[in-house]
């Protein structure tokens, strides 16, 4: 068991170094007085990228199958994975928080914080333990292979655990707003504890299910004997754009609705009270309703962009054999998600307006509020995928982009002049298009088949 844990950290040491530096930097950020960031930063969802996320990277490469051929028991592998993805990361992050916070207190002689160093570290440990524990539990229930061939029960199960995974990351950013002495807070606390403990016991199921997956074997499913009309209708480029657009809209709306509802339940009452007290009315700008949580919106955009465009990035090789020029394909990869995200943004704005009983923000105002910039930044994700392929570097870079984008939106909200934000957004979008076209033409190395990040993709590939 010790060897498996050590092997995990030996292989991912550089991600850990990056994560720890970022975690320490965020802890320093929370020590800056008069910014109110201490509360906001009391729980970073960073831990999840060092826990279940790294484990998933291993799982998608068939690590379970390889490990079970070693002289170790199923139970030993399961326990080792839990410690590597939950137990040890929670402790490590808490220690870093405690040390950084302590040093900052000594340097700045800050005494205004209500919580002692040990309290801050313990608070961080608990937040991360729950976050890592719940996400680990979610991973144990996620489909071991691409869900496309699954029946409806498996799909429901996959969707449930998928929502739990995504929701726990998003929801944990609201950790500061959870009052564990209220009934709602106690229920959340109880659920998180139960799921964390369940994760420990379900780890063996995870190992078993993942070890049963062979990279090139088909997903189980029934053969469809009924005549199908799905081959009919328009195809070609229009069908490609339509498919990308529909997937983005569907997933984007789903995520944004989820976030709006979470905010509506947990943040809105408090925000409305403050807003009413300060201005006499609820903010006239519904999008401002997200307040400091605008980073959440950015995070969701990038999340949707990253995980939907990956599906298409897996098909670049096939798409490059079609009579589509590199410029058109680059355009489809950069501009289709951009338009889809703008539609999602406006739709969520309408939803927020409906919840907060205000009139929706006009598109021009939303752009003036700097909403185009985070979406523009998200258009760099397809470029990253085409440039570097679907590998560890890409995943880590995407995650860093997600995190820095989200925190950047929080810290820089309202601080960048509109014209700079607009010009930067346009430059990034044009740059993404030019870079995507260049990388599509430049080399096929990145979209050669390689170690599978998704069960159904083939292994190997020649030169």
């Amino acid at each position, binding site marked *: 068991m010790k060897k498996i844990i050590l092997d995990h950290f030996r292989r991912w040491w550089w991600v850990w170094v990056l994560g720890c530096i970022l975690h320490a930097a965020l802890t320093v950020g929370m020590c800056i007085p008069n910014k109110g960031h201490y509360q906001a930063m009391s729980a970073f969802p960073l831990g999840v990228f060092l826990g279940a996320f790294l484990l998933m990277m291993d799982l998608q490469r068939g690590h379970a199958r390889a490990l079970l051929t070693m002289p170790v028991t199923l139970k030993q592998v399961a326990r080792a994975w839990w410690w590597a993805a939950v137990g040890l990361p929670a402790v490590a992050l808490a220690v870093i928080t405690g040390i950084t916070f302590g040093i900052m207190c000594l340097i700045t002689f800050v005494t205004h914080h209500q919580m002692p160093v040990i309290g801050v570290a313990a608070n961080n440990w608990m937040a991360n333990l729950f976050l890592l524990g719940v996400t680990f539990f979610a991973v144990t229930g996620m489909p071991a292979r691409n869900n496309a061939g699954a029946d409806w029960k498996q799909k429901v199960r996959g969707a449930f655990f998928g929502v739990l995974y995504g929701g726990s990351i998003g929801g944990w950013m609201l950790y500061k707003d959870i009052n564990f002495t209220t009934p709602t807070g106690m229920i959340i606390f109880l659920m998180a504890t139960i799921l964390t403990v369940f994760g420990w016991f379900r780890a063996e199921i995870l190992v078993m299910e993942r070890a049963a997956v062979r990279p*090139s074997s088909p*997903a189980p499913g029934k053969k469809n004997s009924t005549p*199908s009309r799905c*081959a009919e209708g328009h195809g070609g480029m229009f069908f490609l754009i339509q498919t990308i657009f529909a997937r983005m809209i569907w997933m984007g709306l789903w995520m944004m609705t989820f976030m709006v509802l979470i905010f509506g339940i947990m943040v809105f009452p408090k925000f409305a009270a403050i807003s009413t007290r300060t201005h006499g009315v609820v903010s006239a700008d519904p999008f401002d309703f997200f307040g400091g949580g605008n980073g959440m919106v950015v995070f969701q955009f990038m999340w949707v962009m990253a995980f939907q465009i990956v599906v298409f990035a897996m098909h670049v*090789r*096939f798409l490059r054999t079609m009579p589509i020029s590199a410029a058109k394909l680059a355009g489809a990869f950069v501009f289709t998600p951009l338009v889809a995200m703008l539609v999602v943004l406006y739709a969520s704005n309408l939803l927020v307006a409906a919840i907060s009983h205000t009139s929706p923000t006009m598109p021009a105002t939303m752009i003036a509020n700097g909403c185009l910039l985070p979406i523009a930044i998200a258009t760099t994700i397809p470029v990253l995928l085409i440039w570097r392929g679907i590998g560890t570097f890409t995943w880590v870079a995407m995650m860093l982009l997600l995190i820095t984008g989200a925190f950047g939106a929080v810290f820089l909200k309202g601080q960048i002049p509109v014209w700079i934000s607009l010009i930067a957004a346009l430059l990034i979008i044009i740059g993404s298009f030019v870079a995507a076209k260049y990388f599509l*033409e430049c080399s*096929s190395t990145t979209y050669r*088949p390689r170690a599978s990040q998704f069960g159904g993709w083939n292994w190997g590939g020649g030169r």
Partner: protein
Amino acid sequence: MNSNAIEIRGLVKNYPTFTLGPLDLTVPCGAIYGLIGPNGAGKTTAIDLIFGMGKNDAGTIRVLDLDHHADEVALKQRAAYVSPDLNFQVWGKVGKAIRFVRGFFPNWDDAYCAELMKAFHLDAGEKIATLSFGAKTKLSLLLALSRRPEILVLDEPTTGLDAVSKQQVFSELLKAVENGERTVLISSHGLTDIERFADHVAMIKGGKLLLEGRTDEIVDRFRLAEFFSVNGAKFENRTGLTILRRTEDRWHALIDQTSDAQSFLESRGAKDISLTRLTLEDLFIALAKDGEAK
């Protein structure tokens, strides 16, 4: 009108750890052309460059008199690529993948597509994720053949296929080229199949072209020579002579019959030279191992 379907001249592609070329290949119109070579030889890179997947550092590629970069879209209208590497899963169902590809090709042959679907036991409503490895390759072939391409490029099409599926794939391929109007470029490790079906063959190793020509002529050109040395005579590689292995005084070498290698051996004291005819696979192994054996 050029009589060659594909002409590659002085092609070079540099990677940090590998260089393809300079490479010259000529695929005649109507030929079944086998491209063989060990893993990492540069076969897929060469094929990728034909399809504009990557930029060559030097040289030219012309396909049906079209430049592979300047006329990329026109070229892809007339050429098709088949490989088990291609991933169609984003379309969900077989029918949707067909719908997507059909949209690009005005000459798409629906009747032939239906015929192939029947032959390959594929159904439009079937989920791509549930297809076996072989069925995915068949789908790739179906999508290529139904557009009636003038050039068909196949990269390891039979990898992972069982004997029955392999036979099915080749039978459809032969049907597709039987009128001689279609050219096939096939890269494969199935050397028995290449020897049987390909009328031309080229072998690449380490990014360089080792051999190119008609399959029967190439196979006929080389012989495996077994001989003995006397008085401790030593033999080394030279033009037309590739030493494969040595056990004390017993030597095995590959001889190019168009060279003076046999007379050279005799003049240097080689005794009891026996020549054996090689298969393409034997030849491939001998040439691929050259450099490792000594």
